[in-house]
């Protein structure tokens, strides 16, 4: 135990640097995946058939590919086409795209779950589609989609470790580097695991509270 604490004190500063990168990658790719996901969901529900078909093909292709393969493709193959990205950029974009498909399905399910009658009522008072989406459908779709949305955030926090495979110096990567130079596997990975829990458990707890607060207004 004494050894563990001693080593922890040496390793923690480096791991914490990694944790900062982990949070950055997670936050940025979460925002990116939300934006692309919302766009895909709206296209998927469009009245124009070719747009619908295009959106669902994109979603299917993204869902059919392993995330690591998408990351490798963006980081190692795109430079051949003249697109040079840093590892960090490639990681954020890769995770963002990979998760946008799941986000799109969450959003679509939320939008479809809003009662069709409310859409008609909004039309009947003269609302055009963009206003109707903004004022009536999306706020309620968001409430419905919030639990899976939060879940996605937690999954992305964990899956941000995948960008270690393209050399982004996030927490898992830093752990690997320390472990391979010190051979203190148990200490290093125990610390890494604890640090992930330290981030994910409060997140889960906060999301629970948020869900409860938001559904409070509607149900009595």
């Amino acid at each position: 135990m004494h050894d563990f604490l001693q080593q922890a004190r040496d390793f923690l500063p480096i791991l914490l640097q990694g944790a900062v990168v982990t949070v950055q990658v997670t936050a940025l790719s979460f925002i990116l995946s939300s934006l692309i996901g919302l766009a895909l969901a709206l296209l998927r529900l469009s009245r124009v058939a070719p747009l619908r078909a295009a959106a669902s093909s994109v979603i299917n292709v993204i869902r059919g590919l392993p995330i690591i393969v998408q990351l490798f493709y963006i980081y190692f193959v795109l430079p051949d086409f003249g697109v040079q990205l840093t590892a960090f950029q490639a990681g954020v974009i890769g995770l963002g795209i990979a998760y946008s498909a799941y986000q799109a399905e969450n959003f679509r399910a939320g939008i479809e779950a809003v009662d069709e009658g409310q859409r008609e009522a909004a039309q009947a008072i003269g609302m055009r589609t963009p206003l109707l989406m903004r004022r009536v459908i999306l706020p309620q779709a968001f409430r419905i989609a919030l639990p899976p949305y939060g879940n996605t955030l937690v999954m992305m926090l964990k899956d941000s470790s995948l960008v270690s495979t393209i050399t982004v110096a996030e927490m898992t990567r830093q752990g690997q580097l320390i472990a391979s130079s010190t051979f203190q596997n148990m200490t290093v990975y125990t610390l890494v695991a604890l640090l992930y829990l330290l981030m994910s458990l409060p997140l889960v707890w906060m999301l629970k509270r948020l869900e409860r607060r938001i559904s409070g207004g509607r149900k009595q």
Partner: protein
Amino acid sequence: MIEITDLRKSFGDHAVLRGVSLEVARGEVVCLIGPSGSGKSTVLRCINGLESYDGGEVRVFGERVDAQSDDIHRLRGSLGMVFQRFNLFGHRTVLQNVMEGPVYVKREPVEKVKQEALALLKKVGIEDKACAYPAQLSGGQQQRVAIARALAMKPDAMLFDEPTSALDPELVGDVLQVMRALADEGMTMIVVTHEMGFAREVADRVCFLYDGRIVEEGPASQVLETPQNPRTQDFLRRILHAASQDASAAS
């Protein structure tokens, strides 16, 4: 004010409207009655373009109604619609529901809209529920809010699509009371309904639809008391029979 000429509409192979013609003048109250599936609601939904039509024409205030056109939104603003299932916005309070149209569609100043909305809520008898959410109200209360929401747009005519059909019997009266008051003020109204008492008392004219056509039309007393068409006679007999059974079951 509202002119419908030879209106035709099919859902796939199924012809719902087979040539409906109807004229409604300003201030008139017209009830559409008929068995379910006869096309009553579809006629109503064609008037404000919630449904497109295949043939014939609908004109409102002299303008042709086209569900695809860009003008449809403006037209809908002047036609209030009340639905069978109320369709209140579940994430907004009663007051917000009523204010939504004037504030966000007509872009009127919030304070003025709020005063008008409160006056409307008072008129329909639920000013004390202004801050409640729809889910906290009874069906009858929700429907009165829905009427206030439609009226907030200051429409020139109101369309009612079976406004009392989803209500518990004891809540029907309050809603009909509000509609009666509206008719007395001279509002132009087209009402799809199964409430024969309301039709007899309030309607200037009753149209009986059967299988996508208006088969009988005339003053309420005439159509409801001395129907000429055998379809109408049969329909009214069934309705009255069901009503008297309800009454005897209740006594």
